[in-house]
């Protein structure tokens, strides 16, 4: 929920806090999708014979990883659009997408060690895939922290746009580059891989269906969170605008 500010009048007027109907519908739909994805993960998909129930972490672990990568791709698009147009709205899309992507990748990085503890006997290893994922997470965490250190909004936006484009290299290395490395023990879930992962498993039709549904669900989760985060950024701008206006009157 955010406020609609009518500008141009002597007193800035807050008229409503209600989100648009489309966002409400999308939020409810996403919640239902998450319920359905949980059903698919826990009940519809069969229990994997070698690993047992822990394999079911896979559906949300991989779904969140996919949506995280999508979020960082949106940041690239927003960064390019900002550099071309210079519009604040593209900057907002860019950093909002980084924040949502970081939350999604945190889900992946935090849930993976639980599965790894059983499959590999240890929660973390400095395997190329895991190391690349950790570097990617740190790159985007640094993006948010470094942005905060820049006061001028235009410089902040330019920095964000360029950084967002460059940082995407870490996403490419994590999701594509490591596929060509045979030394990784992390199984490749989608597409061909040069490695033989430990904890790999065959994709039975029901496992594949649940995985595809999870991908779709997390795409909606990303879209919903992004929209809410963008509205929050607009609200922040409105508060900053009002503060500046009041300060200029008082000063």
């Amino acid at each position, binding site marked *: *929920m*955010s*406020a609609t*500010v009518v500008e141009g009048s*002597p*007193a*800035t*007027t*807050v008229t409503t*806090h209600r989100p648009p109907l489309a966002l409400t519908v999308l939020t409810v739909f996403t919640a239902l999708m998450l319920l359905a994805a949980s059903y698919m993960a826990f009940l519809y998909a069969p*229990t*994997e*014979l*070698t*690993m*047992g*129930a*822990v*394999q*079911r*972490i896979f559906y*949300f*672990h991989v779904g*969140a990883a996919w949506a995280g990568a999508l979020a960082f791709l949106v940041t690239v698009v927003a960064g390019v659009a900002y550099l071309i147009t210079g519009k604040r709205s593209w900057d907002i899309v860019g950093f909002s997408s980084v924040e949502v992507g970081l*939350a999604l990748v*945190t*889900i992946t990085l*935090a*849930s993976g060690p*639980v*599965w790894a*503890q*059983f499959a590999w006997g240890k929660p973390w290893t400095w395997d190329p895939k895991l190391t690349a994922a950790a570097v990617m997470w740190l790159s985007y965490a640094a993006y948010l922290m470094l942005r905060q250190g820049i006061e001028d909004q235009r410089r902040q936006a330019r920095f964000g746009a360029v950084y967002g484009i460059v940082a995407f290299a870490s996403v490419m290395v994590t999701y594509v580059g490591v596929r060509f490395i045979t030394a990784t023990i992390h199984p490749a879930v989608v597409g061909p891989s040069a490695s033989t992962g430990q904890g790999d498993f065959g994709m039975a039709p029901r496992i594949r269906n649940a995985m595809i549904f999870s991908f779709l669900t997390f795409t909606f989760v990303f879209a919903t*969170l992004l929209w*809410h*985060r963008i509205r*929050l950024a607009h*609200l*922040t701008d*409105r*508060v900053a605008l*009002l*503060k500046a*206006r*009041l300060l200029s*009157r*008082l000063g």
Partner: protein
Amino acid sequence: MLAAIIQNPTPDTVSYLIIGYVIIGVVGLGYVITLLIRQNNLRRDLEMLKRLEEEED
């Protein structure tokens, strides 16, 4: 086939599954809660600034 299943029964890893989904829930819900808190704080700020502006007028 049956002998192989008996020799290598599917391990009981439900506790790992529960821990995994608790972590997923905590991170996911945690982020949503931070969004809501920030939104509520901003709305409060906005209302207060609006009142101040009206008083100034």
